[in-house]
């Protein structure tokens, strides 16, 4: 079933070009994806991310449940509002989804998962929750707006001055409740900003106020080039059930520190680690020749073949970049070849983070 967010009419009014994204009618852009991309790098832009599913987790065993469910360890979260990025793993270590979990109290968390995987995740969570004293409540009653860019917070406070006291002290990856809103200093662009969850019936008015404060509406197209420049994985493209986080550049999100914690997928990943023979590594590519790198293109290296998982044109760097799964042993600095149609184009291997806070890292 095709679904619409509470901001659908706002997108139409702003001449958004609507596409079907995971069965949601979403704006891909409002004219120029590149202009929207630059707005986020240089000033402030905003995205409708209401299609992502928020879930409230409550109950006496909430923390114990999440410590079992997630590859990252929510025990690290002790300050109210603090958030953590984690993978949701199968027993064999394959990635079911990636998500953000916000901590309020040890008996109250909020989880935000991808739109395309929401139903699958919900089924998995309910199955795993059966043995725990927890309640899971999907929050389809929310609108969520990501305001991103170096001037995002300032413009947000111009639109909503009364929220400033509640949100000014937030550090990155921390959220605060303000009336019935959740203001989180998070995002998916490599820039500063907030992600705001509001009651669905307020979302359009919030969007309008942000437009009036100079925040540029941005579509899913710019969201993708921004996250790619920031070196952030996209579920379903850079990793899925057939890949584990250790081979997807996400080893940093798998927390083995507490030997007593038994999370789903731990045994499979621990065995892989013990063999210390990861056949694949996950790195970035910068195209040296002219052209555009795309997902699924073959990469030829001295150590064997690899594959691009995400590729596009980087508006900030003005050249093509990609994330790629490569044979072990390929290291940053190496020059490899990518099969683009009938040609082999040269690309440089880099750490998979290309742009942060408006500046090139390559």
């Amino acid at each position, binding site marked *: 079933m095709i679904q619409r967010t509470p901001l659908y009419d706002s997108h139409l009014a702003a001449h958004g070009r609507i596409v079907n994204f995971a069965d949601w009618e979403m704006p*891909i*852009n409002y004219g*120029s*994806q*590149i202009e929207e991309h630059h707005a986020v790098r240089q000033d402030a832009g905003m995205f409708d991310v209401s299609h992502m599913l928020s879930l409230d987790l409550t109950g006496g065993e909430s923390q114990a449940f999440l410590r079992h469910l997630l590859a990252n360890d929510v025990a690290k979260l002790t300050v109210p509002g603090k958030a953590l990025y984690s993978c949701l793993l199968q027993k064999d270590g394959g990635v079911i989804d990636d998500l953000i979990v916000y901590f309020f109290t040890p008996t109250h968390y909020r989880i935000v998962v991808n739109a395309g995987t929401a139903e699958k995740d919900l089924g998995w969570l309910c199955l795993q929750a059966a043995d725990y004293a927890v309640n899971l409540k999907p929050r389809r009653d929310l609108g969520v707006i990501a305001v991103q860019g170096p001037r995002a917070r300032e413009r947000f406070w111009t639109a909503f001055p009364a929220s400033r006291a509640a949100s000014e002290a937030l550090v990155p990856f921390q959220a605060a409740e303000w009336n019935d809103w959740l203001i989180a200093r998070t995002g998916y662009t490599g820039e500063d900003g907030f992600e705001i969850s509001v009651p669905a019936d307020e979302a359009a008015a919030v969007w309008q106020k942000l437009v009036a404060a100079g925040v540029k509406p941005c579509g899913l*197209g710019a969201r993708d*080039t921004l996250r790619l420049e920031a070196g952030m994985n996209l579920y379903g493209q850079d990793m899925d059930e057939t890949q584990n986080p250790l081979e997807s550049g996400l080893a940093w999100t798998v927390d083995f520190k507490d030997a007593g914690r038994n999370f789903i997928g731990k045994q499979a990943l621990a065995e892989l680690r013990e063999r210390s023979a990861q056949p694949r590594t996950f790195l970035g590519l910068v195209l040296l020749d*002219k*052209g*555009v790198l*795309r997902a699924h293109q073959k990469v030829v290296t001295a150590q064997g073949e690899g594959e691009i998982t995400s590729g*596009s*044109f980087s*508006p900030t760097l003005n050249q*093509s970049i990609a994330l790629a799964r490569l044979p072990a042993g390929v290291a940053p600095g190496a020059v490899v070849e990518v099969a683009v*149609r009938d040609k082999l184009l040269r690309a440089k291997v880099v750490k998979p983070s290309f742009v942060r806070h408006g500046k090139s890292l390559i």
Partner: protein
Amino acid sequence: MNIPADLKYTQSHEWIKQEADGTVTIGITDHAQEALGDIVFLELPEPGLMVKVGEECAVVESVKAASDIYAPLAGEVVARNEDAMGAPESVNQDAYAAWLFRLKPANPADLSLLLDAAAYEKVAAE
């Protein structure tokens, strides 16, 4: 929709202009550039290449995706737009000014087989 009446068109959204010297100039329509979004790279055929009707002979890459461009007529490539290769965004700015390549058609009469503006308008509306 911007569909000049003096041009010919294809089902695959190329426009074709008959030049006084017997060659034809080829580009993509305004409708096509809008659907593709920001164009960032053009791969155009080198002069001298012989192409068949419907043959893939150029690629227009937008931020979103790569799209093949098909030869609307058989013939020999006689020129390509180097300026547009250096500034691919010019195709977004004016798709009818930023041409891609020129052909010397093997059978100039085949031009009459292409769509006129009214027929293309129906294609673009689909």
